[in-house]
């Protein structure tokens, strides 16, 4: 039974949007500023900020180790936007900083000719797996809101759950057992975003 949802605070993010969405779905959001992480059924790595400063904050508070422990215990983690990037090994945004390395791969910058960067728009997310409870009430392709300059290059191809095209086709959602992460903002994508967020929470319930 999921009740309390911990939202990691990197000190630079908009936590209200995601808290609000969690609250609307009937769960209790808890802002986490420091370790240890207590009494959380789910952890969210939210969206706004810089890879380097976010990782430094996680390292200095010991939250990095706590998140890794949470993951290895099989407890559910959801990453959103910057959150999906932090779970990889490294990012071009901060070359000397190590990521959480929950999955292997690296985060790279868009180099799209003729298209503005950051990628700020509603874009089509194409889901690879169609008949799954995660997509209940959603079409195989839906618009979600993106705002980012970097995207993940995933080494473990089997965890790629959805892709999106912006000059290049990139992985916009991963699912690896108890880890789900999206490059788009679930909490800012209208009713479809809330629907997918709700489905993800239900998927977590069954873990």
């Amino acid at each position, binding site marked *: 039974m999921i009740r309390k949802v911990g939202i990691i605070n990197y000190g630079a993010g908009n936590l*209200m949007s995601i808290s609000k969405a969690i609250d609307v779905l009937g769960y209790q959001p808890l802002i986490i500023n420091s370790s240890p992480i207590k009494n959380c059924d789910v952890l969210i790595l939210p969206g706004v900020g810089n890879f380097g400063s976010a990782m430094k904050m996680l390292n200095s508070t010991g939250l990095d180790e706590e998140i890794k422990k949470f993951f290895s215990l099989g407890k559910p983690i959801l990453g959103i936007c910057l959150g999906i990037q932090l779970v990889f090994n490294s990012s071009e945004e901060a070359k000397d900083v190590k990521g959480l390395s929950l999955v292997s791969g690296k985060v790279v910058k868009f180099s799209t000719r003729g298209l*503005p960067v*950051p990628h*700020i728009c509603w874009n089509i997310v194409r889901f690879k797996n169609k008949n799954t409870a995660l997509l209940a009430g959603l079409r195989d392709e839906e618009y979600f*809101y993106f705002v*980012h300059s970097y995207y993940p290059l995933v080494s473990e191809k089997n965890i790629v759950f959805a892709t999106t095209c912006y000059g290049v086709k990139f992985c916009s959602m991963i699912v690896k057992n108890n880890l789900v992460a999206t490059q788009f903002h679930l909490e800012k994508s209208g009713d479809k975003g809330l629907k997918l967020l709700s489905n993800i929470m239900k998927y977590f319930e069954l873990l």
Partner: protein
Amino acid sequence: MYTIRIIPCLDVKEGKVVKGIHFKNLRYAGDPVELAKWYSDEGADEIVFLDITATIEKRQILLDVVKRTAQNVFVPLTVGGGVKSLDDIRDLLNSGADKVAINTAAVKNPDFVKQAAKMFGSQCIVVAIDAKLVHGSQFTVHSSRFTVHSSRSKVESKKWEVYINAGSTPTGLDAVFWARKVEKLGAGEILLTSIDADGTNQGYDVELTKAVVDAVNIPVIASGGAGKIEHFIEVVKKAKVSAVLAASVFHYKKYSIKKVKTAMNSAGIQVRV
């Protein structure tokens, strides 16, 4: 794939949405909390909230109104008005803003844009530019590193000057130059308003908008002048903007967002439907 965003703008004064012409003669257009919810449900791709008197009245933005407005919005919310410190930005983000628009403070202290982008990420920092066409040939464009005497050039090209303090104070800065500069400083997006076109319903300033879009590689939001559906289509096709912003046509329910999107779609412009 690149969809064009349709953005209703709430110009807020004393907690109420107002709309003027050329930034003046403001009249009441609605309640921000109600309008934001209406637009969010109606298919707006983003909502912009500007506290238009915060800078002039030398006060902080009305956080309480921002908070109540954000409560019912599940699409991106950009908030601006009187933003001049990193603390202001943090307060707005904690009140439910997803992006923050900086205008006057960016001109007065360009380094602030750099610090803000470093702290919160470029994707969070929108620089708002209010620009006005310069008439005559005596105009001199100044910046710390650059001076152009447009009267000397053989071909007279149009120039637009940046205004601050809600369009009341000219700065001598060339709008295209300033746009390039804020991109370098780390702005993630430019919200470009033509003071000449604002509130006229006569169409966006396509020339100004195109000049800025061509000069930068970050997304540009066109603002000021939308009155007909053709105006939206025109500025997207001719100036290649990433987003179109409008206020009065939506507030006074001349067109619904859905109607604008359907028309844009039929004109071959990719939008979220």
